[in-house]
């Protein structure tokens, strides 16, 4: 529900007793609370909703299911986007 955006954790620190992180969303960064995902570390992708990580992106599952999707689109070898993005059209 609501706006949840995936981003990459690039820094982890503590603030007021809460585990916090800096998350990179395709080139922009914002602070977020990681208290609900204590296992994540730098490099993980998380889904952020109103400044909180509510879920970790399961990259293996994503890759597996995306392969099936790619077949559906008759696509061979998808170029997955790399962050940060350049100029996109």
């Amino acid at each position, binding site marked *: 529900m*609501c*706006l949840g*955006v995936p981003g990459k954790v690039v820094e982890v620190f503590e603030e007021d007793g809460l585990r916090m992180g*800096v998350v990179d*969303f*395709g*080139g*922009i*960064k*914002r602070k977020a609370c990681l208290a609900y995902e204590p296992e994540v570390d730098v490099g993980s992708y998380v889904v952020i909703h*109103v400044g909180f990580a509510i879920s970790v992106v399961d990259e293996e599952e994503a890759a597996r299911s995306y392969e099936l999707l790619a077949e559906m689109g008759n696509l061979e070898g998808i170029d997955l986007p790399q*962050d*940060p*993005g*350049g*100029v*996109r*059209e």
Partner: protein
Amino acid sequence: MSDDHEFALRCPVPLPPGDTVLLGHGSGGKLTAQLIRDLFVPVLAGDGSELARLGDAAVVVVNGTRLAFTTDAFVVAPAFFPGSNIGELSVNGTVNDLAMMGATPLFLSAALILEEGLPLRDLGEVVASMAEACRRAGVTLVTGDTKVVERGSADGLFVTTSGVGVIPDGVEIGPERARPGDVVLVSGPVGSHGVAVMSRRAGIEFEAKLVSDTAPLTDLVRAMIAAGDVRCLRDATRGGVASVLNELAEASSVSITAVETDIPVLGPVRAACEMLGLDPLYVANEGVCVAIVAPEDAEAVLAAARANPHGEHAAIVGSVGEGPPRVLLRTGLGATRPLIMLAGDQLPRIC
């Protein structure tokens, strides 16, 4: 299952309840247009109604010379934002309004409204930026005014600049000149300025590799005009590219179809818009113009734009069709939908 109904942009919308000015009246969208159309133009436009033409600048003739004349107020908060400040903005903004008529900008005035308590150092920095921006744009600031208001009345400082320039013979540019078959260009990636400013606003701050795109576009425009028949030019400021396209469609009584995936957006700008739930097509720019060009000259004008440092990401984004006036967007999935004019500002979509 197709939707043939056109969205009637002229649907009668009652003025908002209440009898006071709302923030939305300043957003560059429908509320602004209403205020201008219903309150200002009927009262202020004299005979000949150059005012009613609603171009980026007015064109007046003095002793046989065509002058472009414009004014713009700058109330951006915060006054200092990534890449620039209100001073540079105020010079470039007015220079660009003149350039959008094909004019060579020459002289500027500046009226400053300062809030009591504004640090003189900040004022100094703003003024220095204005001087530098004038130098870069090739214009001279020749007159000004200063007022101070009580603490709390001016958000730091407000700047109003007016400018005058000369339109060379043979240059005919105006919002009403688009015709079916013409090609629509944008000169650069959209949404950068609005997002850069928002990145400093309290409550929704984020660290971004983003700077305002404010820039004087005189040389870019001159190169484009020299390369072919540029029929309309519009500075895509508040209200974004979507608002400009609607204004042009309305002024020329044509339809405009834009292709979403052809409109350039910088990666971090897109990411910021995703995070905040904003549509980059409605976000303010300060260094991007929309041009409507005769089809046979489109490639040449595009090449000329790309050869200029402020136009390196210029792109063809759409085409002009028959009226009635409306703007359509072809989405990434291949569906086509109307791209409407918003009433007020987009609020960051949060929840």
